[in-house]
């Protein structure tokens, strides 16, 4: 079932420079849909359009069949959560206070009774309980990224938009977070995620949309989309793609 769908999205800036050119993407319930592509391909712009931050010149974004522009911010926030790459916090709020902000859309609803529980379980899942009383301004980049992810999980929506949630994370936390995101999808969430790491997309995504110069180069299962020939064509870098010796999951390695 399609939860979030964008169709025919055009975005231009300034004197008609095209950033996105009739891009369409849909995200189904229960799937992790990865957005990949080289720098400047338009991933962040498409992400901004899906999140409702950027109004496209033409095209429509619909959540459960309803145009997102027509949904009041507060109601929208109860249906989908967004994690941006940039997670600066202006004042020294504690990690726990920041995660609790994820519960703001549920204020004055019956769901607010579950605030404490949602905050605690989101912090446990992202392993930030030990940081609860630290001020976020004193945390490292990776810790701050996990606190931000906990905030998004605490929001308890079943549509998630995540812009490179693993960019600042070490190997272990990278894997933990990707597994956590898979768990969310298996529980029925529709997840759109921007990824740089093609191996992460191959290992964890159900579908991949590859952007190239503002257009969709290919969309489908990771193995279909991320072939050696297509990666080389889009990224301009020769690669080898071969199955992992034990799991059989394809691996992408740059040819050096």
């Amino acid at each position: 079932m399609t939860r979030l769908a964008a169709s025919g999205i055009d975005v231009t800036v300034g004197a008609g420079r095209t950033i996105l050119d009739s891009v369409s993407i849909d995200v189904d319930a229960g799937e992790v849909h990865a957005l990949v592509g080289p720098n400047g391909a338009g991933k962040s712009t498409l992400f901004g359009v899906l999140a409702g931050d950027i109004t496209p010149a033409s095209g429509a974004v619909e959540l459960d069949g309803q145009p997102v522009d027509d949904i009041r911010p507060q109601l929208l926030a109860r249906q989908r959560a967004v994690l941006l790459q940039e997670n600066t916090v202006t004042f020294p709020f504690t990690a726990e206070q920041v995660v609790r902000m994820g519960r703001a859309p549920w204020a004055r609803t019956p769901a607010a009774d579950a605030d404490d529980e949602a905050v605690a379980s989101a912090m446990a899942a992202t392993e930030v309980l030990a940081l609860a009383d630290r001020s976020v301004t004193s945390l490292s980049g990776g810790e701050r990224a996990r606190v931000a992810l906990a905030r998004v999980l605490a929001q308890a929506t079943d549509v998630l938009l995540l812009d490179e949630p693993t960019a600042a994370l070490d190997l272990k936390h990278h894997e933990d977070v990707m597994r956590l995101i898979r768990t969310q999808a298996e529980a029925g969430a529709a997840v759109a995620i921007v990824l740089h790491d093609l191996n992460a997309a191959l290992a964890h995504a159900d579908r991949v949309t590859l952007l190239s110069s503002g257009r969709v180069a290919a969309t489908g299962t990771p193995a279909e989309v991320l072939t050696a020939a297509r990666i080389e064509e889009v990224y301009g870098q020769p690669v080898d793609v071969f199955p992992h010796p034990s799991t059989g999951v394809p691996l992408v390695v740059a040819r050096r």
Partner: protein
Amino acid sequence: MTADSRTQQAEVATPTPRTHRRLRFVVVLLVLLVALVVTCVASISSGQYQLSPSDLVGVLLRGIGIDTPWAPDATADDGVISSIRLPRLVLGLLVGAALAVSGVLMQAIFGNPLADAGVVGVSSGAALGAAASITLGLASFGVWTTPVFAFLGGLTAVLAVYLLSRSGGRTEVVTLLLTGIAINAIAGAGMAFLTFLGTTSTREQIVFWQLGSLNGALWSHSALVAPLVALGIVVALVVAPSLDLFALGERTARHLGVNVELLRIVVIVTVAVLVCAAVAFAGIIGFAGLVVPHLMRMLIGPAHRPLVIVSAVGGALLLALADLVARTAVPLADLPIGMITALVGGPFFLWLLVRTRRRSGGWA
């Protein structure tokens, strides 16, 4: 930096952080209130005409119709207190609360801890409006004329700063300060022109505005200012939870359900209301909006609802103290209160600048 992380580690050991924070808020609020009462009593009883605490109680009780043996015989006491010192004290409390809460609001929507009505030129804008209404002899809104023009001047200034200095939902320190310099310069030019146009008496009033003073405060001033301050504080308390979300950045605040455009307009108008209330009869009193929210944030943390409450009380306390010093530091002289707050606030501002610069590794 190490000291910081050490205290934070100490806090991790605290078993119930939220109760801990609430307790801290209550303690800070009580201490501030006690200090405020003490300062008020000291302020009313001291000056050229000294009163002992028992005289004071007697005079105050007589004021509400209760005769006690404490009251001194001379009715001059009543006059000094009820028509000079009390109205001045009350106006000072209102102005202090207004400036401090306007500081909380500005720092929240600018996403910058250095935003303050004086620094970015909102006070100058309001003072220019007020001065224009006096010099040009306008009376279009009756007793409300000066506050209305102060409001229009302040609103123009805060809008200009807001539109000119932000990018990506935040304001860099340098951009904010440079915009403030420009706005202050423009308002200064306007002031100079009005000084040139004005008569000797309006000139005196303009100078008085630029220095900031509570001298000559009347009960009628407080009566005009009080509802504006009350309105500003109530709005600040209502929007406080949204301001917390604003600390995550404008986009994220929107993703969490905040109607960002509406919030911005409401906060900007509220800042203009509070600053006009502060400036209309007391002139430009700098740095209160900067120093108070900062100190309070250090004491109770950044959550905006408790911050607005303790900042309002803290601002009132700061101005009551500053005015007490202004009246009594030099015998037979009434120093401008703006000078006192700037004397405290200026060095504090420098310290903040250095700290902000060190933390963000440059002029971020």
